[in-house]
């Protein structure tokens, strides 16, 4: 707000005045000088709780009436989510997308491309799958902030394309049995689909048949894979 010598020190026109509420001096707990705190007219100073945000409206007044007071504004995003609510959120999301899972029978095995996994892998590995890179405002591909590689847009169209292309990839590439993260604490028996022309690989959990990931292998991964069918 622009200030001038004329109105400096004056109360701005939109600042709440005693006509609408009241100004009360509350002792500060941190030794600061007392500052006036605006109190809504339907809430008396005696009912003001300093434990803001704990419990439902301790003042008992109209919830909408105290929005002008900065000390009483509790951002909604600061609400803490319990472990259970996080869990419910994940479960709900998985259930919602279940109908988009793909079940593929190939080489006498059942493979599952879960939508949740597709959504997770599309942005980072979509370009390797042949999806268009997501372009920034400068027209250049947006790069993954961690790996520095071009990213694909995470949207429904790309998720569908990724799953479709993955299915095609499985049908046209070589299947090998081995391990995912061989020699590491969380190693898993896996079925890999490998395209030697492009060094791309898709891994599936051998036991569950669920899609793990798809990516272009690094030289270190290639040697281990070609020698022992394992992904490190």
């Amino acid at each position: 707000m622009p200030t001038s010598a004329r109105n400096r020190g004056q109360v701005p026109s939109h600042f709440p005045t005693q006509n609408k509420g009241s100004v009360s001096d509350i002792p500060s707990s941190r030794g600061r000088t007392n500052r006036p705190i605006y109190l809504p007219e339907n809430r008396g100073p005696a009912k003001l709780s300093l434990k803001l945000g704990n419990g439902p409206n301790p003042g008992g007044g109209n919830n909408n009436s105290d929005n002008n007071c900065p000390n009483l504004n509790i951002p909604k995003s600061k609400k803490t989510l319990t472990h259970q609510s996080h869990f419910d959120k994940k479960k709900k999301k998985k259930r919602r997308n279940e109908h988009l899972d793909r079940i593929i029978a190939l080489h006498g095995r059942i493979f599952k491309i879960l939508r949740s996994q597709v959504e997770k892998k599309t942005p980072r590995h979509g370009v390797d799958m042949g999806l268009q890179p997501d372009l920034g405002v400068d027209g250049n591909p947006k790069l993954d902030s961690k790996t520095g590689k071009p990213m694909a847009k995470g949207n429904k169209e790309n998720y569908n394309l990724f799953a479709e292309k993955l299915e095609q990839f499985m049908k046209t590439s070589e299947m090998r049995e081995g391990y995912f993260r061989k020699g590491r604490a969380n190693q898993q028996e896996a079925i890999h689909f490998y395209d030697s022309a492009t060094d791309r690989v898709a891994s599936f959990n051998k036991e569950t048949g669920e899609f793990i990931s798809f990516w272009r292998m690094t030289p270190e991964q290639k040697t281990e894979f070609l020698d022992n069918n394992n992904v490190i």
Partner: protein
Amino acid sequence: MDRKYLELLKYEQALNVNGKSLSIENEPDYIKLITYEINFFDHFKWKKRNQYFSLITNLLEKRINIDQYITQLFKLENEIQNLVEELKLDLDKLQEFEPNLVSKGFSKPIADLCSDCRIFEPDSNLREDYELSETQIVNNLREIFLQIQEYA
């Protein structure tokens, strides 16, 4: 550089021009070729070993967070990838190039570091069995750091 490697590289480049791939035409030769190339990665990564050491110690001593660690690790990896690609394009330089024998195997533990970062999932509710938490990454890092220190 080994003459056999140069022959394989030229053969692969000729196949690529014709839209073919050495890995399809002759997988054993392709394995030989990339095994040679791993020596380049060993060498260049070993030359930058102090950067890896400081990156790891910075994370272990909490001077950087996990996101900064991953970003810097992949930046280093991309730099080395570029160095190898540049070398492969310069046949004269390649003929003269000899990887330091001390560096042999150095890229393996580094590959493990990168592999861990690729499957990092900070959200415990979204984490799959094969993915890692920050604590798991740091624990793995301590083990890998011991292997890397042998190259100091």
